[in-house]
Every structure is written in structure tokens, then in C-alpha cells.
């Protein structure tokens, strides 16, 4: 298991009212994302636990891209990954964010 902690600058969408919510499932090539309220409205925090070793740089690229594409300031994302590809990670994060917006 490899863990990664990432704290990125992000803008906030004050209209979002995040309740802790879980998206996705831990199965082969998939991941789950737990979205919670963070401590700082100008930052977005990621905690990743992944079964695939040696992909820290790829994770950083995918998460930085996600944090730049969405107003995720003030949110925290905890991820349990079972070897999802970068595209799947991006997709799940987008889905989690969209559901947050819809709720």
C-alpha cells in the first residue's frame, strides 16, 4: 500500500454544501472517493491510499488537474484505490464533484 498526501490551492464555490459522501467502490481497477468538508476554503486536500506502487507523480498530475478544473476549495477527498487507471481516477473524481453539485 502506498499513501500520498496532497494539499493544493483551489478556489471555492460557496454554494456547495458538502455532506460527507462516498462515491465509487474499491474493486480491481476502480476506487472509492470520500468527500468531506476541509479546514481551509482556499485549499483542497487529497489523501490517497493505493495498491499500485510507484505512481506518485501520476497521482499528483491527475489530482492537480482535477483541482484546477473544479472549484474544490474547502473540500477534502479521501481515496482508496485498487489500481485504477488515471482516466478512471479522473472520471470518479468528476462524478463525485458533479454529485456534490447536484445534491
Amino acid at each position, binding site marked *: 500500500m502506498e499513501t500520498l498526501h496532497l494539499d493544493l490551492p483551489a478556489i471555492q464555490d460557496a454554494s456547495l454544501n458538502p455532506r*460527507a459522501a462516498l462515491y465509487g*467502490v*474499491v*474493486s480491481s481497477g*476502480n476506487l472509492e472517493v*470520500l468527500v468531506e468538508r476541509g479546514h481551509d476554503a482556499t485549499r483542497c486536500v487529497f489523501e490517497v491510499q493505493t*495498491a499500485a506502487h510507484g505512481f506518485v507523480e501520476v497521482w499528483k498530475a491527475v489530482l492537480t488537474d482535477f483541482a484546477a478544473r473544479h472549484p474544490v476549495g474547502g473540500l477534502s477527498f479521501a481515496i*482508496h484505490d485498487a489500481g485504477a487507471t488515471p482516466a478512471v481516477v479522473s472520471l470518479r473524481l468528476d462524478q463525485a464533484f458533479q454529485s456534490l453539485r447536484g445534491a
Partner: protein
Amino acid sequence: MRGLAQSYREALARLRVQALLDPDSFSEWVDPAQRVTSPHLAALEAPVSFDDGVIVGQGLLYAHPVILIAQEGQFNGGAVGEVHGAKIRGALLRAVRDKPSAVLLCIDSGGVRLHEANAGLIAISEIMRALFAVQEAGIPVIALIGGTCGAFGGMGIVARLCDVIIISEEGRIGLSGPEVIETVKGVEEFDSRDRALVWRITGGKIRRTLGEATLLVDDDIAAFSAAAGEEVGARPRFFKKRRLTPAISLQTLQAAQQQLSARAELDAEIRDGQVLWSRMGLGDQVSLMSPEQFNRRLEALES
């Protein structure tokens, strides 16, 4: 929530929970944010899940209070580990205290989580004991089976202890799964890759035929919900009331034993649902019958 057909089989457990119950009525216990995850998986450096693969809580089913337990088949095959099992047991014991109209048990599991060995086995026996306590308190336990993993191993046994089993044609019940049987006894005994054969032996239609499930429903979350609603008296009953487990007494146990002995003596040619169905006069139409037609035909044959 109860609009377009939504496959029960394809849905994740969280979606099933939302769509089975009245909108926004569900409140979860030991929710994912509490991070009660498996210490055994962590020790093995295997991925854990925030809910350990099972969702427990309370909600409303057609305005009737129910306790709901839903296994996530996609996480380690819905297998029961220590935390997973403790959550199920806790929810069952809570039912004894809170007296809901029913407990809905959405089984989607291959059985014990082998990574957790004895802890998983003990969890299964604790679930069984708690389930008896719920029934002793007069609260029906309704199993819903329609996920990709079916109900196998320890959870196959747990399923058969329930008062009612609502199953889809895609749902399965068994003890050893097809692949286990093939591995142990050889492909001549059971070809686990022959999907049609697997379903004619473990699938929803044969289980209902043998009286091991009480009702067949479409692979649609709303159909499962409506059938469970009938069981709690929230909706008019469509088919005759059936119970898997009569009150346990010496007489009922002896009767069940007799039934099993009679079944063991069934003609050895009946190794497949198809043979049984043709002997019952259902011919080869069974696979084409809708759940409603199938329930009707069986009800007519049984009366």
C-alpha cells in the same frame, strides 16, 4: 426514485439503498466518514473500504420503518470480514430493540472473507444468532438477492434462515459456488463456465421452484422494493403469502428433515432445473416466462 426501471444487478449497494427506500429517508450507522475499516486487510496491505463493504441503517419503506443491511458485492465479492460482520450483527440486534416493521437484508456475497479467516467465520455465526433473535422478537427478515455475487457460502446459509427471500432470475443461492465445485470435483461434475447450467442449478427460477425462495421479481430495484413493501403490509399482496421458516419446533424441524430426505431420493436423473421443469409440465418455456407468469404458474401447480 421509483420511476424508470433500474437494474438491481448493475447498481452499487449505495444506489440500491437509495432506490429501495422512500426518498431521503435512509440514515446510515457507522457511516463511511467514521472510517471503521478492516484491520485484517490493512495488515495484509490489501485495499480497504470506508464502509468495509456493507451499508447498515434505518429508513422508510412505503412509510414503514425498516432496518436495512446492504452488502457491496464489488468490494472483495461482498465477503464477510470482522467489521463487515459486526455491522450486520449490530444492525440485527438494533432491530430487536427498535422493533421496525422488518429487516431488509440485501445479500450480495460469496461468503466469508478468506483474508480474515476465523474472524469471518465467527462473524457469520454471530449473524445467524442475531438473525434468530430478530425472528424471536417477531420481526420478519426479508432477504433480497439479485446482485452479481448472489448468496453463497455462509451468506447462502444466512439467506435460507430468513423469513422471506425475494430473488430475481439473475440472483443465485448456493453453498459452494460453481468454481469451487469445479476445482474440487472436476469439470465433469460442474462446468462453472457453462452460465446457463450454473443458473439452472443456482439461479432465481430454480430456487423459487424448489421452495427455497419465496418470490421471483424482475431485475429492477423498484420491483424488489414493491415486493418488500407487500411483505411489510404496505402494499396489497399480489401472490400468496409464503414463509421459508415456520416457527421452529420439533414438529417443524422433523417435517423439514423429511422433506430433505424425500428430495435426496429424487430421481438421480434430475441434475438440472430443466429436467425438473419438464417433469412438472412446464416444458422448455421456463426461460421465456416473465417473473409474473412464472410465479403464477408455480402458484397454480402448488395449490
